[in-house]
């Protein structure tokens, strides 16, 4: 049985620097997988390789058994991998609902002519897209903020808006880059709940996170990267006990986990 996402010997070099070297791991259907590691370990680079933002130097990435390495990002989203960004990338000058509608783009079909002339099917499609966008806002807890500009939302709300935008694209795999970054403890607790509900919808989650309490609570498998290489992989309890991980990573952040 093949996993939803399979990385095999994935390598990315920038000039002489190997940002990601020979990394292999699986993300099983329906699971929540965490990618952790110290700063500069190549976590975000790995994400960018999966989502097509960077080209893979060597190795393969397969999604539902199909090779996706080096495909264009918008194609990969269409195949079912949606993401959020480490440094929030919302459309700041647009309303929350318009931001979420961006995610709906690849699941709707009105082209140039239909957008100019508004045939009945376009009007129906548009109405459904707006309703869906509002449902996603409701889902992440921003139901009342539909018409607020993204830039006027609090930091934690902006992170959740990004998740809503990604969910609107009907992803099979949701890739979250430091979803708890800049959140307080209460917001992080809420986020753990949200990730649980996303999973309950049948969406698989792959996340990068520095907040160990979130990773340990939300993930059933953890992959540890250090200097671009995978040093460990396994369930949270095993990772916490793994001497290599403690040496490379957790050992320097005592008491966090």
């Amino acid at each position, binding site marked *: 049985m093949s996993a939803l996402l399979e990385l095999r010997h994935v390598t990315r070099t920038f000039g002489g620097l190997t940002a990601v070297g020979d990394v292999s791991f699986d993300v099983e259907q329906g699971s929540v997988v965490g990618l952790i590691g110290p700063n500069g370990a190549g976590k975000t680079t790995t994400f960018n390789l999966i989502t097509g933002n960077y080209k893979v130097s060597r190795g393969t990435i397969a999604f539902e058994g199909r090779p996706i390495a080096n495909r264009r990002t918008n194609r990969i989203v269409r195949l079912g991998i949606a993401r959020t960004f480490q440094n929030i990338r919302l459309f*700041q000058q647009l309303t929350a609902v318009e931001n979420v509608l961006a995610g709906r783009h690849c699941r709707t079909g009105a082209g140039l002519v239909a957008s100019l*002339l508004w045939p009945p099917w376009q009007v129906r499609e548009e109405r459904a897209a707006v309703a869906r966008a509002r449902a996603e806002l409701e889902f992440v807890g921003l139901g009342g903020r539909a018409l607020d500009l993204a830039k006027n939302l609090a930091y934690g709300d902006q992170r959740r808006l990004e998740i809503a935008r990604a969910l609107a694209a009907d992803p099979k795999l949701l890739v979250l880059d430091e979803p708890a970054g800049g959140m307080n403890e209460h917001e992080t607790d809420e986020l753990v709940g949200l990730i649980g509900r996303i999973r309950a919808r049948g969406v698989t989650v792959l996340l990068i996170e520095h907040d160990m309490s979130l990773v340990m609570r939300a993930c059933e498998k953890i992959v540890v990267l250090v200097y671009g290489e995978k040093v460990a992989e396994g369930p949270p309890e095993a990772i916490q006990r793994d001497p290599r991980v403690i040496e490379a990573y957790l050992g320097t952040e005592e008491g966090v986990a």
Partner: protein
Amino acid sequence: MSKRLLAGYALGAVALALAPRFLDAYQVDVLNSAGLYVLLALSLNLILGDAGLFNMGHAAFYAVGAYTAAILNTRFEVPILWALPASGAVAALFAVLVARPVIHLRGDYLLVVTIGLGEIVRIALVNDVGGYTGGSNGIFGIARPELFGAKIRKPQEFLFLIWGFVALTVFLFHRLERSRFGRALTYLREDPVAAEGSGIDTARYRLLAFGLGAAWAGMAGTLYASKMTIISPESFSFWESVQLFLMVILGGSGSIPGVIIGATIVVVMPEIFRDLASARMLFFGLVMMVMMIIRPQGLLPVRGLRFRKAHLAAPPPAPAASPAQAEVSP
């Protein structure tokens, strides 16, 4: 569209309809020329305002449309209004072909390339490439348009033709900006990386923005050719592109009513200050500078004009696709 905006358009339409009663032929002609520039500025607004692509060679597409119509009309005797879709299509095709290799360029780099493009087209026309464009003399003897058997000749007749086309354009473009296509352009302008990451084929939409903008500029070129009956390369100079750029920025990038006002001001203001003779351009330039300092977002910026409560329509959100919201915090 908000009620205030609708009222503004209605007021503008009434004022234009009554204009021939109060204005002389010259003044009506100024309004006609304003209408053409409104069309051109609205077409550039798709590229520059909505998609955020710096295009300072828009006169090239205008020229391609005008020359296509003029050649079709004078050589092949195609009625000028029949040439409208053809010139739009040729301009769009031209835009997509020349933009294809440079579309990935950002901001100021694209600006420089499009300036070059505008100059190449103008110089090609002067040099009578292919023997069709008539060199620096241009093409003359272009027929007046005919609508329902009536020939359109006088400025007040053109007023209705041109501003009628403006009204149609405004109607369609408002629909565009509030639909999937228009939003895709806006996402592209706001953050291309996030747009691509949300599943939008940004390369394709850049090209489509150029294609549609050029098609409209080409059709405006057709109207221009039929109004003037003579066209020459000097009508499509770099200065034209600069002015169009100015109209969009001055009025409010991405805002349809803003761009209409911006274009009208840029055309009409120098006429009003005609008494200042040679100093009028100086005065004009000064107003532009002051504008950019005190109101850089344009006269009627887009904020607050797009998505509003009425557009949410629908009953309160029923999260159909998602399970009922559970109480959070584990």
